[in-house]
């Protein structure tokens, strides 16, 4: 019998509702982005994000059902992002999902947002199965995760300071690019020479799988400041390309090493930064060289979306991990299972 899961995502500045069949077949995935709203503030304003979520969620629900060609009574499971993320934003989705599950008398599953990002690969590649090693890189997190099963994760490495996406955003700001910084920086880098500048590669330690991006960020800042001081032009394209190359190489280096050391033959990427073309291209080459299979989701499943949440909710549901009506928002839960 088919199982239809509705997914709800509101952890940051995207509101999304999706319907997914049997965990992997996306019947609809409606995303409402607030980028335009937050642009004038140069970043996400939590209170504004929360206000938007509650204004749009009913519309998104209808759209998701309509596109999937089903009605609410057909839903078997309600999955919702419960953390990590912005507390006020998370609470809108969680409170809404609880109301739905209660009224429909259907099981509720609180989903970990990072686990959701990883699950995006299971949607994209319908025959992909764990175990695999996944790099989750976004504005909020940078982790190398051992995916032992659909719901069993082990953090093998993580950033010791800024998340990869955060570093992209900060460098974008140094270069005077508007919000959202990451995608704008990638665009600028396309026209630049990645070998123009050699920024220091920061590995906290060669022996583990953690990374650090504050060093390269500071190096960019110092370079830009000294150029400005000498009243020389700032070659933004070259700086962006060189910075991007640096970050991409560090991420890939650690990921490939971890895959070899922990005996994974499949590597994947997930999260907002995983739509970066330089990262995809380079990792494809390096994975091939190392004899690893490489998986990545389509860009729509890299950003925050509810389909990935529904996917993970489905597997948690199959394993009996059902949430009750005390489900809360957990802004700093990391990759831990939602209780």
């Amino acid at each position: 019998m088919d199982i239809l899961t509705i997914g709800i995502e509101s952890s940051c500045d995207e509101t999304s509702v999706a319907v997914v069949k049997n965990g992997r077949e996306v019947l609809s995935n409606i995303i409402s982005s607030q980028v335009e709203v937050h642009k004038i503030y140069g970043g996400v304003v939590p209170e504004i994000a929360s206000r938007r979520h509650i204004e749009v969620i009913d519309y998104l629900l209808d759209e998701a059902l309509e596109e999937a060609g089903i009605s609410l009574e057909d839903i078997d499971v309600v999955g919702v992002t419960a953390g990590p993320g912005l507390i006020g934003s998370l609470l809108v989705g969680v409170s809404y999902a609880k109301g739905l599950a209660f009224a429909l008398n259907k099981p509720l599953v609180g989903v970990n947002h990072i686990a959701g990002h990883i699950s995006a690969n299971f949607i994209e590649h319908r025959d992909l199965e764990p175990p695999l090693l996944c790099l989750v890189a976004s504005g909020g997190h940078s982790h190398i995760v051992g995916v032992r099963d659909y719901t069993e994760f082990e953090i093998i490495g993580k950033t010791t300071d800024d998340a990869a996406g955060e570093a992209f955003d900060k460098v974008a700001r140094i270069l005077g690019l508007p919000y959202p910084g990451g995608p704008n920086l990638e665009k600028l880098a396309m026209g630049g020479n990645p070998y123009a500048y050699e920024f220091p590669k920061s590995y906290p330690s060669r022996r583990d799988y953690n990374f650090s991006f504050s060093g390269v960020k500071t190096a960019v800042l110092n370079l830009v400041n000294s150029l400005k001081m000498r009243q020389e032009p700032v070659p933004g394209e070259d700086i962006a390309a060189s910075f991007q190359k640096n970050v991409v190489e560090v991420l890939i280096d650690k990921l490939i090493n971890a895959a070899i050391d922990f005996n994974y033959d499949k590597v994947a990427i997930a999260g907002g930064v995983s739509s970066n073309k330089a990262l995809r291209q380079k990792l494809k080459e390096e994975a091939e060289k190392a004899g690893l299979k490489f998986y990545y989701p389509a860009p729509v499943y890299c950003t925050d979306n509810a389909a990935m949440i529904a996917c993970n909710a489905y597997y948690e549901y199959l394993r009996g991990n059902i949430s009750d009506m005390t489900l809360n928002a957990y802004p700093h839960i990391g990759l831990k299972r939602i209780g």
Partner: protein
Amino acid sequence: MRILGIDTSTSVGSAAVVEDDRILGEFYIESNMTHSVKFMPMMGELLNTLDIGMEDMDAVAVTIGPGSFTGLRIGLAHAKAICHALDKPIVGINTLDALAYNMFNMRRTVCPMLDARNEQVYTAIYEDGKRVSEYMGISIHDLIHELRGRDVIISGDGARRYAEVFRDNLPDVILAPAYLMMPRASSIAMLGIEKLKAGEEDNLYKIAPFYMRKPQAERLRELRK
């Protein structure tokens, strides 16, 4: 008409089922636990105890504000989802109106107020059960000035917090007793019935919290301009 009342606008959370002019049941808690954890189980328990299902309800009434921004969104998200799922009418009730309704027909000026921090409150003034002022965001000192010379009864978490200041400055002020001090879901449900009877059902898609205040980032931005 049977209606579910929901309120999570302040530190109090309450749920009630009202049938026409009778309160069938009401749960009310004020605890340190957040509404996001406590409210739905409490509401479920109320319906269980009454042996009434959500589908037996004719509508849902919910406080839309003023109040805690996060609290308002929790209650409204619950109410919207329930009404969306079961295709029930939704009706939003102003928190100050609900507080004033607690002291219906009082031969005094009724002034409910909700704490807006920094010695500010959200408030309105009521006479003979009718609102006679705008909904205001105002400093307690300006409010005291406004209320001087009137026989007034005050309520709400603003009144509770600034009770001393009001007593010191308004010698005849009466503080509402504890059981009338905070919003009650039964009052919200009662007002909901009145509104529904008057044909004032809200649109599920358009109903939004009545914040009375823009987000801080927006205010700062306007100031800079």
